[in-house]
């Protein structure tokens, strides 16, 4: 029987059915659930790696050992993993290797809107693009066939609306794959110049074979509806186009977007008077079509920013417009906020109070940049808070070092903050780094990491000792503070900023949403004592608001962290 599955769950099912034995990933929206789901199959070893580069290298090693192996990441994670990817393209594989990369058009939960197809082209690795959950499963499995037939890693690109949409999937039993025996072969696997030169020739020949494959591959399919209008499309955009245009046009749907076929495009174009290319983000299919000398329209109509949808396509190509009734008045926006009881709040309140310049990083705590705390000056990518702060302080010297900090989560620190901290210690900037240790990878939905003492399957694991690690890196001043105790946090921040050497403050308190965290009774406002000074509102806690001129705490949200009570000068919060 068919089952409703997220694209990510279906992807995991495909890995399972294809006999995959090894998965190593770093969580990243919208890719995270593939690895969480595959970990539920006992036949597949699955782990969270500290970062995407480590994950791809581990998966590559597993495929050298002869297993079908897998790694998953979000689009920006592939930048981190680009180094092994580009050379794995040269070595090729032993067992099959599939790498999932999830793009985020519209930036629902990302810092940029890059198009991962560029990595496939640049690394000369084939890329498949499913457009619904069934295809996620099928393409994951096909990925292994292509990987082993052509001796190459295979990228499978999804996007938010594919990864996080559920549709029906047919499940089949798993086919066990024997390990492919490992045979020593330095010419193929030792990528020193003399060997790599030979492998580059192999890569170029492989690309030619893959182009030939793409010409007739079943996943590059033509749907001929007898129209004079043709649409070339792939991924989620295919579903939007189908909904908007139905059988009014012919479709060429590319299931494989690198390398692209040539003759298939020419033949399809020959049947159409007008040709449109409908793809999200960059005009990669369009450029290829135009390079073949075929006239078409794409990005000039649709642009390369944000998501497409059926309404945009219907409006642009058919001129149809839906009747819309707007709500009669302006409504206040509801941006995401730090949760009630979030341990990060105490840190950002302290930093905002002292007008400290904050070098930010990637995680829930990026919300420290939001109103009312607005306590973040820049955020770039994983691990960058610490290294950016170092450069900033080196240039501005003493005047900067005493009023700037970097903030970085425990998981992000393990991902790539450690090496940045080495730079702070080694090249001696008097920087103050705050590790926001909430004992979990928060933003992506509570994944374990090397500091939590548990592995992906929830079993006990070695836990990195953050204090000892920072000291071993060469930071002499390392201290722990509790962000629920505002006075303690303030003292720690002011003392470490004043110190004439690098320092680390570990702000330690588990995420309030963790199931094992016991909550206190909700706080209450004694309205006789409340002077309506609104001091408590400065925390930006979603549970606190003004009702009838007095502060009021929503008991359904409050977890009793008590930092509002610490702040109240009139002891009105109990």
């Amino acid at each position, binding site marked *: 029987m068919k089952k409703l599955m997220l694209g990510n769950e279906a992807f995991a099912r495909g890995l399972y059915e294809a006999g995959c034995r090894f998965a190593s990933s770093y969580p990243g929206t919208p890719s995270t659930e593939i690895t969480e789901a595959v970990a539920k199959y006992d036949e597949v070893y699955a782990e969270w790696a500290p970062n995407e580069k480590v994950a791809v290298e581990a998966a590559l090693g597993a495929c050298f050992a002869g297993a079908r192996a897998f790694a998953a990441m979000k689009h920006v994670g592939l930048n981190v993993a680009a180094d092994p990817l580009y050379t794995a393209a040269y070595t090729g594989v032993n067992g099959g290797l599939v790498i999932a990369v999830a793009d985020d058009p519209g930036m629902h939960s990302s810092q940029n809107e890059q198009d991962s197809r560029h990595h496939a082209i640049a690394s000369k690795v084939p890329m498949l693009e499913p457009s619904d959950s069934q295809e996620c499963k099928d393409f994951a499995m096909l990925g292994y066939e292509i990987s082993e037939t052509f001796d190459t890693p295979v990228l499978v690109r999804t996007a938010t609306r594919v990864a996080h*949409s*559920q549709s029906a999937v047919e499940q089949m039993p798993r086919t066990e794959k024997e390990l492919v025996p490992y045979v020593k072969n330095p010419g193929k696997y030792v990528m020193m110049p003399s060997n790599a030169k030979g492998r580059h020739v192999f890569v170029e020949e492989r690309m030619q074979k893959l182009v030939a494959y793409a010409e007739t591959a079943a996943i590059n399919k033509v749907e001929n509806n007898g129209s004079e209008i043709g649409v070339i499309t792939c991924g989620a955009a295919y579903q939007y186009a189908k909904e908007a245009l139905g059988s009014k046009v012919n479709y060429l749907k590319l299931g494989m977007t690198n390398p692209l076929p040539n003759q298939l495009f020419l033949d399809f174009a020959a049947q159409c008077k007008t040709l449109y290319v409908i793809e999200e983000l960059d005009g990669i299919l369009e450029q290829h079509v135009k390079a073949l000398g075929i006239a078409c329209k794409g990005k000039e109509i649709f642009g390369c920013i944000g998501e497409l949808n059926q309404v945009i396509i219907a409006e642009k190509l058919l001129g149809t417009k839906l009747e819309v009734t707007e*709500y009669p008045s302006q409504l206040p926006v509801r941006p*995401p906020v730090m949760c009630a009881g979030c341990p990060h709040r105490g840190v950002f309140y302290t930093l905002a109070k002292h007008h400290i310049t904050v070098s930010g990083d990637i995680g829930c705590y990026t919300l420290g940049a939001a109103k009312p705390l607005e306590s973040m000056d820049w955020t770039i990518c994983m691990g960058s808070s610490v290294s950016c702060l170092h450069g900033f302080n080196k240039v501005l010297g003493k005047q900067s070092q005493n009023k700037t900090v970097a903030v970085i989560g425990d998981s992000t620190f393990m991902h790539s903050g450690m090496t940045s901290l080495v730079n702070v210690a080694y090249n001696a900037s008097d920087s103050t780094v705050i590790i926001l240790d909430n004992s979990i990878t928060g933003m992506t939905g509570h994944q374990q990491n090397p500091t939590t003492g548990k592995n992906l399957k929830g079993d006990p694991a070695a836990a990195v000792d953050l204090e000892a690690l920072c000291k071993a890196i060469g930071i002499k001043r390392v201290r722990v503070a509790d962000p629920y105790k505002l006075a303690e946090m303030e003292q720690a921040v002011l003392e470490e900023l004043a110190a004439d050497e690098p320092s680390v403050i570990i702000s330690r308190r588990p995420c309030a949403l963790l199931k094992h965290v016991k909550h206190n009774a909700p706080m209450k406002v004694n309205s006789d004592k409340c002077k309506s000074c609104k001091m408590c509102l400065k925390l930006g806690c979603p549970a606190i608001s003004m009702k009838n001129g007095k502060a009021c705490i929503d008991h359904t949200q409050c977890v009793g962290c008590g930092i509002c009570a610490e702040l109240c000068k009139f002891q009105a919060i109990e």
Partner: protein
Amino acid sequence: METKSIMIVGVGGQGSLLASRILGNVLLQQGFAVKVSEVHGMSQRGGSVVTYVKYGDEVCSPVIEKGEADVIISFELLEAARWASYLKKGGKIVTSTQTLDPMPVITGTATYPEDIVGNLMKMDIDVTAVDALSLAEKAGTAKASNVVLMGVVSKKMDFDESIWQEALNQCVPQKFIEINRAAFELGRSAD
């Protein structure tokens, strides 16, 4: 059958994912093609969240745009207002009367809009407003407001109650099933 479009809207953390999974399972068991589109990650942290559920003979796009929805199920009043323009003419809203102040209201740069239900009715929308929070607390936990609303919705859809019960069993962890069944029943007998 023409594709039907249902939106589930609310504030991150209110349990819209569970509601959409229950609804998706019910529709699949009815033999429809179904797509359910969720958003995870940053916007889940107390922001405005929306889940799309579409069903029919064939569903292509998983998303719903302005003017396309048949029904909006809302866990919070302001969110019902925010997404109302997504309804097509003659669309319905089933909303909880719960209100949660968004940050601009908390910080005093905006006020929480008044008479949302009245304004929605003036837009010619068929509105059902239910105090789902109180009913959920009566069932044993404020967290079950989502399932209370599914109970309300189940009365408006022409599917056998046993199918809803089966979907509840599939989607809710066993240790919370009793409390959620109670919440569902309270929603079903409300209105």
